Each structure stands twice: as C-alpha cells, then as structure tokens.
C-alpha cells in the first residue's frame, strides 16, 4: 500500500500527487515510469514519475483523467492509499551533453518530458522548450519548465494562451529562424510525435520520443506494449519507453491504443452512472 501525501488539481481533469514509494524514489532516473493499481479490483496502468524526493521516499505523478481508473484515482485524497506502485520501469533516458536540446511536450506529455529536460539541463545542455495544450487551463508545469529552459514557447489550439496553433508550427518556426538544434525530445499524443518527426525530417535533426503504449505487467512479460521500431518489434516497457522517433511506427502505436476502446467506454459510463457527483460540472 502506497500512501498519497499531497494532491493538487491542475484542472478538473488533470491531477498531481506525491506518493510514498521509497524504493521507487531511490532508484528512479529520468525517463522511467511506474505501474499502478489503485485497488484490489483495479487494472494496472503506467504513469510517469515526474519528480522524486528520495530522502523523503516520495514520488510525484501527474495524470489526466481519461478513463475509469484515472477518474477514480482522481477521487483519492491525501492519506488514502494506492494499492500498488511498482517501478521504476523502463530504460532511463540517455542523457548527455548534446548542445541545444529542444523539448516538445503536448498535453500531459509535458509531465514525462519535464524530468528528462531537467536531466538534460543538469548535463549542461541549453534548453528550448515548446509546450502545447488545447487551451490555457490545460497547460501544466509551465513555471517549472521555464525555470530550466532558456526559452519557452507555448502554443494552444484555441489561442487562449501563447501562440495559436500546434507545437509543430512553433517547431518549424524555430528551425527556420536559424536556431541550431542538436537534439529534440518530443512527448505527447502519438499523432503529435508523428508530426514532430515529420517536421524534423527535412533537417535531419535527431528526435527521441517516449511512447504511451498500453501495458499490463510492465516488466516484459506480456508483450501488449509491443511496437514496430525500424525492422524490429520492441516492448515499450523494457526496451523503451524512449525510442528514435524516426524509426517508430506511430500509426501502429495509435491503432493498438484503441484495442479496448469499447470496454474503456463501458467502464467509464458505468462509473459515471454510479458516481455522477464526481463528474458534475466537468465538460
């Protein structure tokens, strides 16, 4: 059992928690994630570790409420327990001094991006960060990203903050402004990562992406997270979650994420009907 010690709502649909998980906090490196199970009947889902305080045995998680599990987890309060938190899982990010690193984060993809950028900064890289959100109120971690980045460009789909448009527009503009970019790290929805890579392709700028595949055990045992990378099939949980963006088959990634769409909808509807109060006033 893993105690929640602090909770913050970034938005009615985006939630942050600090959780007691001393073993994970001790070992976690940027790029790694945990699998959680919220209670005895829960499913196992992967979540990013955004930050940690090893001396206090705490890890920080941020998640978007999309399905039944994340909505239910959103009802947990400080003092409540998450049944299982296991990790850190996956390969840590390969961090070195590249020169100028551009971080591109979309939506809650900013959460896994932040610790990687922090590692890049600590390794002596110059950081430019592009953050994208649907609207201003869905933008997370802006201040923290600003604290480590030399420049931050915000884009919103509706133009409610920063530039109106997509992260790829801002990225293209940045490249065309003559900025010499040595490495890009892009994390967000599959479609965003796919187009970031497409944007970079003509300039041959290397790009790391972190994949949000479906997972079960998270230890290489089930293979549900498998994805074609180059000529090989890789397991995101043990071979990733980060890969060379140029080699990832994003269409396959996005397709595989829809396997249980009906069931996910069914579970969420059932939960909504049982707990309408949780959803009151949320669009």
């Amino acid at each position, binding site marked *: 059992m893993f105690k929640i010690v602090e909770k913050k709502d970034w938005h009615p649909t985006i939630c942050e928690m600090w959780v007691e998980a001393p073993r994970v906090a001790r070992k976690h490196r940027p790029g790694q994630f945990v699998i959680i199970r919220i209670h005895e009947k829960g499913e196992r889902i992967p979540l990013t570790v955004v930050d940690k305080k090893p001396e206090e045995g705490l890890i920080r998680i941020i998640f978007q409420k999309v399905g039944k599990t994340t909505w239910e987890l959103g009802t947990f309060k400080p003092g409540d327990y998450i*049944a299982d938190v296991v990790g850190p899982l996956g390969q840590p990010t390969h961090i070195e001094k590249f020169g100028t690193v551009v971080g591109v984060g979309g939506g809650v993809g900013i959460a896994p991006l932040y610790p990687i950028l922090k590692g890049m900064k600590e390794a002596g890289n110059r950081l430019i960060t592009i953050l994208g959100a649907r609207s201003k109120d869905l933008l997370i971690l802006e201040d923290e990203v600003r604290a480590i980045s030399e420049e931050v460009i915000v884009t919103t789909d509706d133009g409610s903050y920063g530039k109106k448009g997509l992260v790829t527009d801002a990225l293209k503009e940045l490249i065309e402004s003559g900025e010499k970019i040595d490495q890009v790290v892009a994390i967000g929805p599959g479609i965003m990562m796919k187009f970031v890579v497409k944007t970079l392709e003509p300039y041959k700028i290397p790009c790391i992406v972190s994949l949000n595949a479906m997972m079960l055990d998270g*230890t*290489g*045992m*089930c293979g549900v997270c498998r994805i074609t990378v180059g000529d090989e*099939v890789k397991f995101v949980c043990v071979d990733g979650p980060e890969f060379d963006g140029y080699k990832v088959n994003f269409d396959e990634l996005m397709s*595989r994420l829809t396997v249980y769409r009906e*069931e996910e909808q069914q579970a969420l509807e059932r939960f909504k009907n049982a707990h309408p109060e949780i959803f009151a006033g949320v669009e």
Partner: protein
Amino acid sequence: MAEKKKGLNLNRVDMPRQDPKERIKNFNEVALGYTEEMAVAEAERCLLCKKPLCVQGCPAEVKIPEFIALIRERKFIEAARKIKETNALPAVCGRVCPQEEQCEEMCVLNKKGAPIAIGRLERFVADYEAKMGAVEKPEIAPKSGKKVAVIGSGPGGLTVAADCAIMGHEVVVFEALHKPGGVLVYGIPEFRLPKVIVEREVEYIKSLGVKFECDVVVGRTVTIDDLMEKEGFDAVFIGVGAGAPIFMGIPGETLKGVYSANEFLTRNNLMKAYLFPEYDTPIKVGKKVAVVGGGNVAMDAVRTALRLGAEEAHIVYRRTRKEMPARAEEIENAEEEGVIFNFLINPVEIIGDENGWVKGLKCIRMELGEPDESGRRRPVPIPGSEFIMDVDTVIMAIGTRANPVIQRTTPDLEVNKWGYIVADEETCKTSKKGVFAGGDIIRGAATVILAVGDGKKAARAIDHYLRTGEW
C-alpha cells in the same frame, strides 16, 4: 491394519469432473476431487512396494507409500503432513504436476496400465487438511540469524522460502507482480488451479515466518547487490521463471486481436478480466480464436477462450497429436470441451483488416520429417500448401524465454547463450557467491514440480552455505 491378501486391483478410481457442457460456461475448477471413500478405495490398490519406484519419479521427494498407507487408515490429516515434510505445495502439485511422467509413470501398476492415482490422492489429503482447518506448522529450527532473499514467488521460490524458514533462516520473498504465486497466479487458469488454493499455500508459508514484499522488480526496484550489500541478505535465490513471451516473427503480429498467451492468461487469471466490468481489466475474445502451440499453456489459453465466449476455439500445431507436449489429461479436457485441433499446420502470416484488426491466419501445411534434437520428428512445410484460416483472434503460445532484467543488472552472474542463468544442477549455485537459482530461469520453460525440486535442492545448499560459509 493387517494387509489383506488379494490380487491386483486395476480399477483406477476415476475423479469426478464438471460436465463439459456446463464447465465451458464457468471458470470453476474442472476436476472435483475424490471423496473420502474414493480416496480410500484408490489407496487400497497400492501395493506399498518395499522398494517404491514412485518416489524416484518425484522431484519433490514426497514419501508416497507412507502417505498412501495413512490414507488407507483414514488418517488423512496425517497423510497431508507426511507430504508436507518434503513438499510445501501439495494442493498445487496434486493438481498441476504431470504425474503420468513422474511418480505414476514409475508405479509398478503402470505396467498394467493402471498406476495408483498419486496426484489425485495428494490433492485429496491437502484439500482435506485445509477443509478441516487442521493445517499445522512443522517444527521450525532455532533462528540462525541469517537472511535469505527469494526473488520470485512461483513454485520454486515458495519452496525455497518454506524450506529455508523451517531451517531457521529469516526469509523475504520479493515478487514483481502485486500478488504472490508467480505462474500459479498469472498463468494457470482458475479452472485448473483455483486461486484460493494458491492463496492458502502462500498463507501457510507466511505462517512459517516468511515475509512477502510485492511490487518489487529485482533488477529495477532493487538490485541483487543492493540486497546483499545494503539490506543485509546473506543468500539470494533467483526463481523468476522464464517469463518473456516468444512471438513467431511473422508479419501481422502487432495487429489488434493478437495476444501472447502470457498476456491473455494474465489478463484473465491475475487481473480477473473474466469478471469485467466488476474488475477493471478488460479482455477481448473474438468469435473464432486460434491458439498457436501444443503445450499446457496453449491448452490453458484455448480453454480460457472458450469460457470467455469464443464460438470456435482452435489449436494450431505444426506437428501431430503424438508430439504435443501438453499433458494427455489437458488435451482430453480440451477435446471434451469442443476445442478444434488442427495438426501439421504452421502460421506464416496474420492478416489484418483495414482497421488493423485480425481477420485471418495464413498457414502452411506441414509433414513430419526426420527426428530433430528433441527426438520428435521435425515438421517440414509443404510448398504451395498455404491457406487462410478464418479467425479474428490469434494467441501465441509457442513458449517463453528468460527475461534479462536481473542478469543485466548483475554483471557477475553467468548466463548461457539463451540468457538462462548458469547454475549447478545439484546445488543451484550460480557463478556469484551467495546467489542460487532454480526453476525455469536455469533451464527454460518446464514444470511446476521441477521448480519445486530445484527449490528443495537450493534450500539445502543455502542452509549448508549459511552454516559453514563454504562455497
């Protein structure tokens, strides 16, 4: 009790099972177990050989004639305890051991085609003891002051844990998943091994003083060196199994509707997806399911698919029935339940529809050629014989291999070219001082009872090492 003089009784007592028509609608155990009368009747057939061969066939060294003699005297609880003197997992082994290749194969009555049903008797007394609430702890040796870490809580790990605890050592079992039991929990279905039985065996091992820490992936959450250098463990047993699934490497394996048997079974067994939406984990089984493989895992997967509502459930196997590695009993169960067996065919491609879902399995027909290194005749493809099976779900049950996470983070641990840990057959000692390994991680996917057997050897070797310091 005086021995009755009588001729050989070759009427092996059948064990009642759920009716096939009923059981494919539920996940309850198929085999229903002996009644007291059945158990006594079966035990009466035993010749109580002076030099029992059955024992030689048991990797767990169970005192078979002794426990059978106690059943004859209706001393069922004593019989259970007699088994537990050497095997901490009788209710599990009585259910899932391939007795027909072990104790029962060695039984002298096997020559007449009617070996004593040792497995059924083992299971009967273990269940009887639990039902009576009479589970008793064996005598535990005085505390040695030594600490043993057991990595993995499958049958090998549980055995080491129990034996080491009885020998007086402090034992902590580390499990990567959220529940102890390893393959007994995630792999073997409820209808073959009810999870309450695994829980019962785990509770028994806890009662011996063993501690369990779940959600620890050794190699990631903590390394073996951390355990030995920072957490004070004097010896480590690695019993993590061979848990990484093998895919065929044919086109279409990343389509939706393709599962590894591990995924399919884990969703269902560990996560209880058959109870979705009461449990949160979903599972999808189509109308026509093909399970590729011929082992016990393939049987488990195909029978699970039927129970989840598949209209057609196929086994696709590249050799013939004779070469199938699955237990005869499980093949019969599957046949009774309506599983369709397709022999001498091998998948070459999985065909998808425009939305990325499986819509067919392209196979090629095979014929048997010369025997290969396994002694089985090698299947050879017949050119031009490709055809498409109309299926919407494909489950790959063609085996598993070593998961490299521990080996990668323990550089001084020797592994062979397949990634399995090199360990001494008699002592389970690895190349790293104080570290032992057993079960599937040293030999590749095998059986519960071989893991139990390794566990017993390892526990003895660990005890010796801890008491003498000799390596």
